[in-house]
């Protein structure tokens, strides 16, 4: 079938502002939006740019705004968003991060926020004397499972009104990552992380708008995890 792609284009070497590129491509209904973007890049205009790698929704490279919603271009099928031959699909860069070129944004500020919450396991206690794994029961393992699914795609953070308002806010993705360690029974740095998240640009910037949860391609209940962090801060208890 034929679809009409309307893609927000910007090349800082040439353009003073962004413009809409319009392209018609022939696709199968079961093709991914990423396949359609490739048809533009490979056969119509090689200067067009999007990041991608895995093409099946696990590497987190191709977060873009498709018809106004943050999605991974490789995880949306044409048939999921288009009804009739010739229908239009709009594709723009995610919002709130500086655009480098076309659909490519600068991910450094996003990763800086991520790094600011100590997104790594901390436990300096002696290792088990038998040289084996630390034990963790199934319920304790389950407690932080949701956050471990995060692929750092930034769909959540770049759909968050609080982040758009002030990009110093660490953003939902960073809170999810902090949650993953705060609620891991083996970890020992929960208090430090909670202190970071209690600061002005921390978790209290969240106004519980749920955009992030709706945007997450890994179906992580982002807002709920943020709520659990807030609760831990409010009650001083990690449960």
């Amino acid at each position: 079938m034929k679809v009409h792609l309307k893609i927000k284009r910007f090349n800082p070497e040439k353009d003073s502002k962004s413009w809409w590129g319009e392209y018609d491509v022939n696709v199968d209904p079961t093709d991914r939006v990423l396949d359609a973007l490739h048809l533009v890049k490979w056969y119509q205009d090689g200067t067009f740019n999007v990041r991608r790698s895995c093409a099946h929704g696990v590497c987190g490279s191709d977060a873009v705004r498709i018809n106004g919603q943050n999605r991974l271009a490789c995880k949306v099928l044409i048939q999921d968003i288009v009804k009739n031959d010739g229908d239009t699909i709009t594709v723009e860069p995610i919002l709130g991060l500086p655009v480098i070129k076309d659909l490519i944004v600068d991910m450094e500020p996003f990763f800086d926020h991520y790094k600011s919450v100590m997104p790594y396991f901390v436990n300096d206690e002696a290792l088990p004397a038998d040289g084996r794994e630390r034990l963790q029961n199934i319920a304790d393992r389950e407690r932080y499972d949701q956050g471990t699914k995060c692929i750092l795609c930034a769909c959540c953070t770049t759909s968050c009104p609080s982040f758009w308002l002030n990009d110093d806010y660490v953003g939902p993705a960073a809170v999810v990552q902090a949650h993953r360690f705060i609620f891991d029974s083996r970890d020992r740095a929960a208090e430090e992380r909670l202190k970071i998240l209690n600061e002005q640009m921390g978790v209290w910037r969240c106004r519980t708008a749920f955009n992030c949860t709706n945007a997450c391609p890994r179906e992580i209940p982002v807002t709920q995890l943020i709520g659990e962090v807030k609760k831990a801060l409010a009650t001083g208890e990690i449960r």
Partner: protein
Amino acid sequence: MTKHHQFDAIIVGGGGAGLEAALHASKSANVAVVTKLYPTRSHTGTAQGGIAAALGNMEPDSWEWHMYDTVKGGDYLVDQDAAEILARDAIDAIIELEHMGLPFDRTPDGKIEQRRFGGHTANFGEKAVMRACKAADRTGHMILQTLYQQCIKNKVNFFNEYFVTDIIVEDNVCRGVVAINVADSEVHLFHAKAVLIASGGFGKMFKVTSNAHTLTGDPVAAYYRRGLPLEDMEFFQFHPTGIYKLGILLSEAARGEGAIFINDKGERFMERYMPTLKDLAPRDICSRCIYEEVRAGRGIGGKDYVYMDFRPGTINKFKSGPGGRDVTREHLEKALPDILEFARVYMGIDPMKDPVPIQPTAHYAMGGIPTDADGRALADNTNVVTGLYAAGECACVSVHGANRLGTNSLVDLVVFGRRGGKAMADFCKPAGFAPLPITAAADTIAEFDRIRAGRGSERAAAIRADLQNMMTNYVGVFRNGPDMQKAVEGVRELKARFKNIKTDDTGKIFNTDVLETFELGCLLDLAEVTAAAALRRTETRGGHAREDFQERDDANWLNHSMAYRADDKRDAAVTRCDIRFENKPVTITKFQPKERKY
């Protein structure tokens, strides 16, 4: 202007192998990781099913059994000294990952939980054993995340979105790498005492593949272009369970949990071929059996695919669950969430209600840069290239021989990434910096100028599509002389077309038009070596199945192949010359070659 950097050690690639090496090397050396993708985008993150280690948490197991399975799985082309290290070190390496915080699934008593996987057995082939450690079906994701997290903690230096184009080797001494900063196309020279290549696979030479768009093997091609050998390139693994037409992988973990293959007649056909392990036979065998069924007209609707059936009803009817036990839908949803989602999203099929159409998909490169067991890259059968290392899928140690067992790649990454990282750090301590040749970047600049100026008539995408079709059709699961001859000649024609390339983007910022074209050139070189090596090997062994030579031929072919460019040129451009082959002996220690049955 070319920019200069100096580090003791440079690691090319931020996947599992690269990060593991970086963590260990950075304990004593000044290290930087140079990677064309953000590390967390690396394809290690897509690995699903598990990582093997004989922990024995579920039932008795031993590293000897793991070693035996690895050797037999590789159809005896495995170097057994290396396989012993793999199986022994695996235990310690997995425990180390747990200590780094990796969220493994747990048993009721809190230990790491394990599941069955193809070709992994107890007591030298007696029955399937639970050896694969896992985090649901996102084990690779958890390994990649955990290693990256530890790299942040340990302040490892990263050059993200820097594309390595060339390895600087002179007088058999490695001096660094040349890279292009994707953000602005500037050329950077990384001067180093030691370099470790961890660039992953190169499955994008095939049409139907589980590999990422970015798996094009550029540093492996660079190695070959510098006159160094590539080992066992004819051995490429076709995984039996790719989603029909798309090639997206549905992990063997599914069969570990009880899923089975079904043909058009509703028959569990693996029972006929491999009576002991059945659907859990190694991948090369399952892929061939699927096509045997298709050839016999028993593909679904007479077409070129079969079903994988995950439905609890089917699993329980055939008693194919772990230990013959019944499974529930709830359990499968918990154990295989991502795999079930792939079928739902990309096929619109709910595997709990309907069987899933699958077809073999090009998956894993057994061959690559030859190394010893400390990751040192080889210049020929015996000598190393001073200061040059490789680890992970791009390397050939060889622990996988002619066919890799599932879950053995992730172990390979951590075991040999770690050993390579340590070895390079030890090497860096006494070593000085070998001088950089003044012209180190010249070949890269010349090739990129040529591509950027390309105003011919051939689009990279069209050449790439032709290459992928040809490799899938002629150098696939079943192979024969005339077809492979066509592939070798075909790649050479594509190389001629590549001269007449057309690029659109003349800019500097994120010029992926030019980079993708360079990647295509790398694929052309690697595909040519793959096809030529396959044509040369006149036997059937592991993943290399020939219709015209159906038996394994130990008398003539129990050796590795080493492929060299046959001319004297050394540069960073697509080669245009013959390939010279040599044989390298296989190391056999504990297990003498036997017939391979399951």
